[in-house]
C-alpha cells in the first residue's frame, strides 16, 4: 500500500498499470454504451429519456467520490505531513470538476423532458452545481497563489472546510427544496431499479472509474515530475 503515500512507489506502479487501465476503460465504455442504448429497455414512464441516467448517476457518484478521496488526502497531508497528498490534490481537482460538470449538464438534459425546463431548482441539481463551484474555487486557488508552500497547504485547508460545508449545503438545499417546491424526486427512498437497467449502470460506473483513474495517473505523474524539475 506504499504507493498511496510515496511518490516514487506510485511512479513504479503507475507505469506498470497505466496501459491495462486505459484499455480496460475503453472496453468498458464501449460495452456500457452498447448496453445502455440497445440492450436495456425503455422506462415504463419516461420512455427512452431515462438513458441519460446512465451518464448522470455515475458522474454524480464519481464527483462525490473524488471529493471524498481529496479530503482524505488533505487530512493525510496536513496532519501526517505526507507531501503526496498535495500532489494528489493539485492533480485530481480538475478531474472532479469535469465529472461534476458532466453530472450538471446531463442532469439538466434529463430535466428538459421530465420537468419541461432546462434548469430546475431541484435539490440535487443545485447542490451538485455548488460542488462544481467549490471545485472551480480549488482550481482557481491553485492557479492564483504563487508561493507553492502556501498554495498547497491553503488548498488542503479549503478542501477540508469545503468538505464540512458540503453536507450542510446538500442538506439545506434539500430542505429548502421542500419549502420552495415539493421534491419532484422524493429524496428519501432509494430508487428501486429493475435488474435489467442496473447492469448498464454498473458497467458505466466502472467505465467512469477506470477513465478517471487513468487520467489521474497521468496527471499525478506530471505533477511529480514538475515538482522535481522546477524547484519554485
Amino acid at each position, binding site marked *: 500500500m506504499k504507493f498511496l503515500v510515496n511518490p516514487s512507489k506510485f511512479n513504479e506502479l503507475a507505469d506498470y498499470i497505466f496501459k491495462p487501465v486505459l484499455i480496460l476503460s475503453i472496453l468498458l465504455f464501449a460495452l456500457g454504451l452498447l448496453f445502455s442504448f440497445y440492450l436495456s*429497455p425503455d*422506462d415504463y414512464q419516461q420512455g427512452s429519456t*431515462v438513458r441519460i441516467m446512465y451518464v448522470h448517476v455515475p458522474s454524480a457518484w464519481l464527483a462525490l467520490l473524488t471529493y471524498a478521496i481529496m479530503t482524505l488526502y488533505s487530512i493525510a497531508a496536513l496532519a501526517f505531513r505526507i507531501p503526496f497528498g498535495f500532489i494528489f490534490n493539485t492533480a485530481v481537482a480538475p478531474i472532479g470538476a469535469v465529472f461534476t460538470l458532466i453530472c450538471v449538464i446531463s442532469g439538466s438534459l434529463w430535466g428538459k423532458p421530465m420537468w*419541461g425546463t432546462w434548469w430546475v431548482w431541484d435539490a440535487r441539481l443545485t447542490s451538485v452545481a455548488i460542488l462544481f463551484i467549490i471545485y472551480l474555487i480549488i482550481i482557481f486557488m491553485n492557479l492564483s497563489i504563487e508561493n507553492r508552500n502556501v498554495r498547497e497547504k491553503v488548498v488542503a485547508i479549503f478542501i477540508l472546510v469545503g468538505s464540512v460545508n458540503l453536507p450542510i449545503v446538500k442538506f439545506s438545499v434539500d*430542505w429548502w427544496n*421542500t419549502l420552495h417546491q415539493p421534491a419532484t424526486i*422524493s429524496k428519501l427512498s432509494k430508487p428501486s431499479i*429493475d435488474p435489467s437497467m442496473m447492469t448498464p449502470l454498473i458497467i458505466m460506473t466502472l467505465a467512469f472509474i477506470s477513465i478517471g483513474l487513468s487520467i489521474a495517473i497521468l496527471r499525478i505523474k506530471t505533477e511529480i515530475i514538475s515538482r522535481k524539475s522546477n524547484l519554485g
Partner: protein
Amino acid sequence: MSLRFQRLLLILLTLAIILSAVLLILYNTRENVSYFYTPSEIDKSNITINKIIRIGGFVENDSFNKISSSSFKFRITDEKKSIVVTFNGILPDLFREGQGAVIEGAFVDKNIFNATNVFAKHDENYMPASIKEDLKDTGYWNKKYK
C-alpha cells in the same frame, strides 16, 4: 499546564462544539420536514379558507375532466379522503390519473380547493415498459404499482 495539554484541550473543545451543533441541527429539522398535508390530514388541522397550503396525494382514477383548454377539475385522494380540485394552467406532462401529485393553492370554500400550481410527483420505480404491458394483462398492474 503544558503546551501539549492545552492544545489537546482546545481540540476536544472544538469537537464538542461541532458535535453539539450537528445534533442541534438534526434535531430541529426533524420536526418540520414533512411540509405538505395529505387529504385526510386536512380535516384534522383547521385550515382556514384561502390560506396557501400544499396537498400531496394520488389523482383519483376517472375523476379527471377537462373544462376548457386550460382549466381542469380532478380529485386528489389518499384512499381515505378525497378533495375536489380546480386548476387552470398547464399541467406537467407526467400528470396522469393514478399518478402521485402535489398541488399548491388554497380552499375557495368548504370543500373546493383551487390550486395555483401542480407538481407531478415522479414515483421512483424505474421499470421497463414491457413488464408494464404484461402486468396490465394479468390485471395485477394497479394494485402493485399504485
